[in-house]
């Protein structure tokens, strides 16, 4: 009889411990995914921003002084001149965001590609963004309405960039974890705003 009681108690204790272990493993995996997703998203964002900011700072390099360097400026696209390979021939560089349909295969329904196009070469995807927005400011800090009309392109002194990157893959949440207006899926996200990016070549 005593043995039976020992076995039952051991089984109950073992089952409880097993549940604790499984729960701990679950929590660990969730935390790992969450933090890993956050880190990944931040790395992607920073790398994309360094590329974008670096090229915008070089707007006008190799462009004659009496010639404007911004060719077109809109909310989600910018065209500018920059002699990338320093061969005395200015290249036309264009950054623009695509549509969400182009990234339809990813579970995240908000992400879309960020393209970089040089001259007439094929556009290259340089990042994945969920928000990608430009604002154009005059020297006095006044925002120009977009798209900036041709006659006002020369008034652009600085560019404000707002960008958000989200993890294409989500973690599902239970109903009670989802707030009003939120998606069921939890996507790691990171946002960046550069409020005053001015090319030195604009001062000429």
């Amino acid at each position, binding site marked *: 009889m005593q043995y039976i009681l020992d076995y039952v108690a*051991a089984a109950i204790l073992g089952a409880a411990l097993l549940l604790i272990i499984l729960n701990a*493993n679950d929590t660990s995996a969730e935390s790992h995914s969450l*933090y890993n997703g956050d880190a990944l998203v931040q790395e992607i964002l920073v*790398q994309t921003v360094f590329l974008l900011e670096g090229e915008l700072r*070089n707007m006008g390099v190799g462009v004659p002084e009496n010639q404007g360097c911004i060719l077109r400026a809109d909310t989600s696209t910018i065209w500018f001149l920059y002699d990338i390979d320093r061969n005395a021939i200015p290249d036309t560089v264009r950054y623009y965001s695509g549509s969400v349909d182009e990234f339809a295969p990813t579970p995240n329904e908000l992400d879309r590609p960020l393209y970089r196009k040089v001259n007439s070469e094929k556009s290259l995807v340089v990042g994945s963004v969920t928000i990608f927005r430009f604002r154009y400011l005059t*020297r*006095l800090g006044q925002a120009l309405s977009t798209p900036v009309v041709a*006659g006002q392109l020369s*008034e652009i002194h600085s560019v404000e960039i707002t960008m958000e990157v989200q993890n294409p893959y989500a973690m599902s949440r239970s109903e009670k974890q989802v707030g009003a207006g939120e998606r069921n899926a939890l996507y790691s996200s990171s946002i960046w705003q550069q409020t005053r990016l001015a090319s030195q070549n604009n001062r*000429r």
Partner: protein
Amino acid sequence: MAGKAALVLVIGFMILLGYVSRDLSVIAGRAQGNMSTYAAATESHNLAITGANAGLARLYQDTSWRGSRTQELSGAADRSFTYTVSTGANGRPFLRSVSLVRGPFETLGDTVEVEFGAQTLQTFTLFAWMTNFEGNIFWITGDTVWGRVHSNSLMHVNGQPVFMEKVTTAKSFDPKPGVGQNKAIFKNGYETGVAPIKFPDDLSQISAAAASGGRLYAGDVTVELKGGTAASGDGYVEVYSGATKIDSFEINSATFNGALGATGRVSVSGVVDGKISIFSTTNVYVLDDITYENKTTASDDVLGLISEADVTIADSPGNKTNVNIDGSIFCRSGSLKAENYNSGSPRGVFNMFGSIVQDTRGAVGTFSGSTLKTGYYKRYRYDERLSEPSFRPPWYPGFYTTTFAISCWWESVHIPKFN
């Protein structure tokens, strides 16, 4: 038996918790590593820019300096920048700044390169408006300038004048743009604190040209410009001393180099067909309209009115109702102004097509609010042909820029690599 099971259980727990702990510490370590990498990349970039600015400061102290300097950050031997100023293939200075940052995982270096424009002879006609001294005259709402503007002095603004091209000043604006009543619109930007542009010490260059290959008269003269027929290139000049005609010649004559001047007052009027500069070692008077026969962009008609002191719109019968001047005006030590600008009845509009460069800003009228009381309203329009440096009136004064202007600023694009 139970004791062994407990031991197995404890060991199992230790393995599991150890695994979880290791996992979390790896992520924490990666986050910290990313932060360090980002900080090092940003620091490297900013150091390179700092080096470029330090190099610029050194070069602008002495534009003939060439060499290299390395500077370590105070208390941080693993962070430094080196700037080098050399002479480029084009003969102009070339500045390169390179940073060095020893980061946690790698050594980083960024580069900034600065190229400079040539110190070429510029003509004053590049400016639609230029002054040595603005005096206490304000740019106000309704003023619109097409073409570049420069002043060697403080520029006063009260209202919303519109500058269609770049505005530069060796001093600053009063008040600063966007502050107080300065609501000026700069369509092509502005720059303050630029190097002053020096006026020539005298008019000896054009005087010498007039004396050799041009026309130089003693005393006061009156110059009547005649357009000839409607055809281009047959304009001529009649010169009077008092009522006596003392000279007459074709502007495009092979024996005339384009410079006409006098040691006394020169009074001018008429129609210009050709290229000519008229100067006086005292003052120039505009007796009546001076217009180009052909005012299109394809025209080669161009006039310079150059004066040691003032260019004055005479209070003459021809100027009682409006006055039109097509040409480039240069007043070396005086002003462009209207005679008796502050008395009499309003005289209409002063239409200027060309460029105005004067030592001290002069007055052409007085106003009550925006209503003309005496003198003229102003309508100044820049002659876009003058923005091409090679197109200018013959022997028109020029200047050398005293510092090297930055023509190109390039920064390396460094994308951080995360672990």
